[in-house]
């Protein structure tokens, strides 16, 4: 019998306070509350070059559900990786363990944060599910890894993940800004377009012509931005496996830019 499918709303690019450029208010419980308040079924935590706060947000969502908060939020494990070309790539992973393992490899390719780094780029707090600061990441998450784009995509795939070209309509840190053309052979599973490019804009027609599924996400660095853009998914349940099917367009699963 075919699975019963439903519509789900996902914001697949949300930072926590661990990202140096994100607000300190982006704590695990605050993110979960904001996402539920915006009516999202699913978010993905994608900090810059680290997945070390992912499990805490997942735990905060699980606790919220136990305590009977309205709605149930699925939190996918992700990471926004900066390639050597300074192209930002979202990795979405099957679970926090896979994301953290990928994060360990990524960390080895980053410089250490030196004196004055925090004052310039921002703090990098590691947090608990209830929003306490447990420590600080000492790798320079704001900088680029030494991995070329192909190696980044390969690393994501080796850890069972999906690779999404982040905010490809942005003038910085996108495939187009850094590389001029979209490399068809790079192996992306999807492309992300921000809310600043409209569905009927000429650029959108160009992005559609790439033939990859298009996601829309908030790239939230502040609580108020969560859910300001979202991707509509036709899935059986909000989960990584179902998102993978939706991006591949298999078994009736589908993705549409919401």
């Amino acid at each position, binding site marked *: 019998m075919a699975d019963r499918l439903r519509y789900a709303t996902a914001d697949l690019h949300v930072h926590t306070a661990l990202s140096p450029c994100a607000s300190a208010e982006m704590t695990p419980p605050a993110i979960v509350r904001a996402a539920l308040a915006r009516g999202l079924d699913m978010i993905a935590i994608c900090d810059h070059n680290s997945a070390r706060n992912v499990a805490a947000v997942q735990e905060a969502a699980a606790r919220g559900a136990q305590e009977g908060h309205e709605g149930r939020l699925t939190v996918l494990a992700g990471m926004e990786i900066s390639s050597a*070309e300074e192209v930002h790539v979202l990795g979405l992973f099957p679970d926090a363990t896979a994301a953290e393992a990928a994060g360990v490899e990524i960390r080895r390719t980053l410089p250490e944060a030196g004196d004055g780094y925090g004052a310039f780029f921002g703090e990098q707090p590691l947090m608990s599910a209830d929003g306490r600061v447990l420590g600080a990441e000492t790798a320079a998450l704001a900088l680029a890894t030494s991995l*070329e*784009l192909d190696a980044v995509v390969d690393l994501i795939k080796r850890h069972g993940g999906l690779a999404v070209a982040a905010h490809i309509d942005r003038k910085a840190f996108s495939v*187009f*800004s*850094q*590389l*001029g*053309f979209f*490399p068809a052979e790079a192996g992306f599973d999807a492309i992300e377009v921000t809310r600043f490019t409209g569905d009927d804009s000429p650029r959108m027609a160009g992005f559609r012509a790439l033939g990859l599924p298009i996601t829309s996400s908030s790239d939230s660095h502040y609580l108020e931005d969560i859910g300001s853009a979202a991707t509509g998914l036709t899935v059986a349940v909000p989960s990584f496996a179902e998102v993978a099917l939706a991006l591949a367009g298999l078994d009736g699963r589908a993705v549409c830019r919401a």
Partner: protein
Amino acid sequence: MKLQELVKALALTELTPVAAGEGEADVTQGYASDLLSDVLAHAPSGGVLVTLQVHLNVIAVASHAGLRAVIFSSSRTPEDDVISKAVDEGLSLYVSPADTFDIVGRLYQLGVRGRTA
């Protein structure tokens, strides 16, 4: 100045065989950038590009912009598939241990100019 002369003066390492006639071509303009979208929009046709970007897209962008040669700075050396693509496109590739600033400075001394000079 002829491309061949620039290569000699800067002691550049050749990554591609010099295409027929290209060594004799006069190179008067240059551009330095690592953002390929910017190269696409602003690099002068017939000129030389100095970059540390070694992605395959450099070749497509350089061809599209009508560039004659690419110099990779700071010993950044592209993969073999990038080099063979350049050969297909008739584009000459070079690498230098010098950084972008010093390469551009030398080129400028030898009379190569940017679009805004």
